[in-house]
């Protein structure tokens, strides 16, 4: 009888221990993703240039407004140069900033391409003639995170009929 009591006591102790211990259940959530390096190119109004429509974005517009070779006025930030009797040139600086994330690249190359070949007017960025439409290198060693000024020059021949001029220039930055 003594042994049975001892056994019962031991079993009771185990039972009470079991009741007192916390009941737990678990689960696991695995989370995966693939981080891709990315580059951002932003057009910014230059302090000396015309106010860009869409400044601070990657799709901006340079509004030269309505201009004429002789007389008239140009928007603030736009310079008009009359080239004798043959043409006049509109110029304005604009800024480009290229930023980088999740990449070991230290510099970038910047190319620009005029969307539609223009055989009448001349489109220059800095000293680079874009008119033919092919990609043109602007820099091979751009520094990320810095604002770089560029100047757009549009030369209109005096022989051109009055009317609207519109084109697009695509910019491509590639981390090196």
């Amino acid at each position: 009888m003594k042994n049975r009591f001892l056994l019962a006591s031991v079993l009771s102790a185990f039972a009470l221990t079991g009741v007192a211990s916390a009941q737990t259940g678990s689960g696991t959530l695995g989370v995966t993703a693939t981080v891709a390096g990315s580059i951002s190119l932003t057009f910014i109004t230059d302090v000396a240039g015309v106010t860009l429509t869409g400044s601070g974005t990657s799709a901006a517009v340079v509004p030269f407004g309505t201009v004429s070779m002789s007389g008239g006025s140009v928007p603030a930030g736009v310079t008009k140069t009359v080239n004798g009797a043959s043409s006049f040139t509109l110029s304005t600086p604009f800024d480009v900033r290229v930023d980088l994330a999740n990449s070991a690249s230290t510099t970038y190359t910047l190319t620009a391409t005029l969307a539609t070949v223009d055989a009448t007017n001349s489109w220059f960025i800095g000293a680079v003639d874009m008119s033919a439409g092919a990609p043109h290198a602007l820099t091979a060693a751009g520094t990320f995170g810095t604002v770089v000024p560029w100047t757009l020059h549009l030369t209109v021949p005096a022989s051109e009929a009055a009317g609207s001029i519109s084109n697009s220039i695509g910019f491509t930055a590639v981390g090196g």
Partner: protein
Amino acid sequence: MTSQRTPLFRLGMLALLTNPGAFGQPAGAPRLFTAVIANPAAPTITILPAANGALLRNQGGSQASLDLGRVSYFGGTSAPGQSSQKHSQSFVTSTRFALRVDCPGNSAGSKVNVTMSRLDSADKHVMRIDGTPVRSTEQILVQSMPCGSQGEHRLDMEVLVSAPPGPISSNVAFLATLNR
């Protein structure tokens, strides 16, 4: 006299524990002692997709996986059920998932505390659930969650812009403890 009554009392208790009839059970019911002390089954956690969350794969039992796909600072995320937010030095990809807790064998009204902890030590990304960073030490996610219920949670994965490109992964452990 006292020294004799105590053993008798203990014997009486033992008889109660070993006599099924004493608890109104059928005399033939076996192992009443076991029935009295048996623990209810442990709580179970099920990880489920949220209504507006990313695609979540249940891998059986209480295991699930969530693939946030390709994410980037400037490109964000394009996967359905996810959103992305840029900060100056990092970006956060967010989605939602649901946790369900069941407590088989426990009375209605039972509740659990749910904790979370991170099982990996990657330092280039931060995991947050409902705004609380998930660390290697257990932290309370839900207190007094009713058994049989489920709730949605927001998962944020924050990646530094200085982190190298490539795959990242984390495992978050959830633990449900029955309240007593």
